[in-house]
């Protein structure tokens, strides 16, 4: 099997004296959808922040595309195609939808590519085309999540790190968004690392999954293994 696209080995990250990650090992191959599951405070978001350099890890190695990226600046990783959709959507409420999308293409200077991408996004989420002149803050939660995902797509990601895209959304909206995530993965071959609390849904979508508990990966396997494993179901999926 080919070398993994992203590989974490013994990653330790701390906020002051509190160690949030106590040696995380994780690998993702190109084209996969990986779900990273776990309870609140398990270190899922910290793992994403460690990868993207928002919170630099203390030790361990993070290799993306054969290069050690531990401690690299976030913007250089975005340039390499490693893009995160931050938790809680974090769209720019005062900018219009169109401007939000253009912010996603900040590092892309080819104007024709940007307008093609816009067209692609508006096909993917037609509601964003309707709302393109509206300011981001006026969108509903689901629309904001669509905007957040679209905004990161504008930066031509090779790997997308999604932090709880289902947070605070209605089930029907979540399904819609998960369908789109699957579509992005299939059509563009974008590798996806999905952090979720909604384990059932995430496992339906993912190829493989990791389960985190208090700063460590405690279980890993294919999504179907998890869905069929009685003990996992009991512990993490609510029966």
């Amino acid at each position, binding site marked *: 099997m080919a070398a993994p696209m992203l590989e974490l080995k013994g990653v330790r990250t701390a906020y002051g004296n509190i160690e949030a990650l106590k040696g995380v090992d994780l690998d993702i191959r190109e084209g996969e959808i990986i779900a990273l599951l776990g309870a609140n405070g398990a270190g899922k978001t910290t793992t994403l922040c460690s990868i993207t350099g928002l919170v630099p890890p203390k030790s361990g190695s993070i290799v993306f595309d054969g290069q050690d990226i531990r401690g690299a600046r976030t*913007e250089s990783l975005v340039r390499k195609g490693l893009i995160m959709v931050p938790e809680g959507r974090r769209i*720019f409420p005062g900018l219009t939808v169109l401007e939000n999308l253009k912010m996603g293409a900040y590092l892309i200077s080819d104007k024709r590519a940007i307008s093609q991408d816009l067209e692609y996004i508006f096909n993917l989420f037609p509601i964003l085309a309707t709302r393109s002149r509206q*300011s981001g803050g*006026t969108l509903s939660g689901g629309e904001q999540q669509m905007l957040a995902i679209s905004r990161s797509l504008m930066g031509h990601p090779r790997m997308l790190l999604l932090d709880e895209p289902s947070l605070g959304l209605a089930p029907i909206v979540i399904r819609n968004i998960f369908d789109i995530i699957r579509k992005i993965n299939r059509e563009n071959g974008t590798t996806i690392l999905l952090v979720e609390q909604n384990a059932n849904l995430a496992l339906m979508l993912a190829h493989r999954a990791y389960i985190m508990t208090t700063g460590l990966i405690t279980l890993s396997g294919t999504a179907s293994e998890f869905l069929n494993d009685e003990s996992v179901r009991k512990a993490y999926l609510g029966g």
Partner: protein
Amino acid sequence: MTNPSSSQKPGRAILAEIKAGLLASLWICLLAFPLMTLEINPSSHTISFSASRLPFLAGATFVLAILWRFFLRRRAFQGVSKAVLKSEGLPEGLIKGPKPTWLTVVMGSRFRYPVLAILLGFMALLPFVSPPYLVNVMVKALIYVSLGLGLNVVVGVSGLLNLGYVAFYAMGAYTYALLGQYLGLGFWVCLPLGALVATLMGLLLGFPVIRLSGDYLAIVTLSFGEITRLVLTNLDITRGPRGISNIRPAGFFGLDLNGPIKDFLVANLGVDKDMDINKILTYFIILGLVILTIICVFRLENSRLGRAWLAMREDEVACQAMGINKTRAKLTAFALGSTWAGLAGVVFASHLSFINPTIFSFMESIMILSIVVLGGMGSIPGVILGALVLIVLPEQLRAFSQYRMLIFGALMVLMMVFRPGGLIQSAREVYLHKLGGQDGPQGGPAGGAARIEALNGAGRPVEGDGRG
């Protein structure tokens, strides 16, 4: 709705109002007690007591308090109608913004260029028909417009609170004064040099402090402003507190403007015979600079970098996730803002022909910041209006000069309560909401009773906008 007691028992509500008014006037009387009652007589070294002014103060406060509460109530009722709109399914943010103003309407229409041309023509003719005094005031006001627009990039657009902006203004002014004094360099050479010095100092200061945010950045920049002033006061080369005098005005191809040219202008164009023609030149220089600034700031705001600044103000983490180099983006804003202070400083030095460190005090930074806040953060027309209001009005209302700061303070408080976005709010926050099935350039939300169209593009077309 907001005040159920008033609809149920009007008598009790009025009583409550009177009570609140009395409370306010009692409070003011206590606060102002020593100020209003004690009178120091310096010649006889005695302190006398007189309570005769207190009742007037109490009465005035009472009336003002009642009025104040009335206007606040009215504002709250506007909030209710907004809540009603919201219950009809309109998104909150859309309703929040004010209706389009005459400004956005004019600037969005096809009369935009004629209106601008008339305005420009008026500004161009002004110095030839007005008394010298007014030209001086206008030069001062335009210097503040360009300072305000420069600070607007830093504070209004990027959200970096810079309280030491005057330091960069001083650097521009001193660059011209010193280079002119010691090396004999002229205005036109020093104009870019002053800008360069201010920009470089902006970068130097910005580099270590830009990682600070909010209050911390404000404190550091405030200190920097004070340090600059103290250094200028104590250096020998700047002649300390005595300052530098006899700074030459801007030259015009080496011509003597107050010679035959002045005779010609006075004879043929009706220019005031006491007018210093150099002032007219300075007026046009600063007018040109302001126009250049407006174009630059406008282009910047709608550029990739400008969007990054706006986005940075809203969410730094998301910006980083988009691949924006946070430090670099902030530093550019900081340094670019300083550039305009430098330019304005050079013009200022040539205009006044004398500068000393006391001119560049902390109060001046506050004044420029007030222009930005009063006018409307991030709004170009707002900042222009703010500068005109805060600079020209005090000049015209000399009779009230004693009460200048009092009026200024009251104005600021009133504005923060009733118009927190500034006199002319940033167009970015203006939305038009249309009810009913009128036609717009784009399809409305499906199935909604209301058609909503954001008017963000008015006067500042977004790329790909057919209206531009």
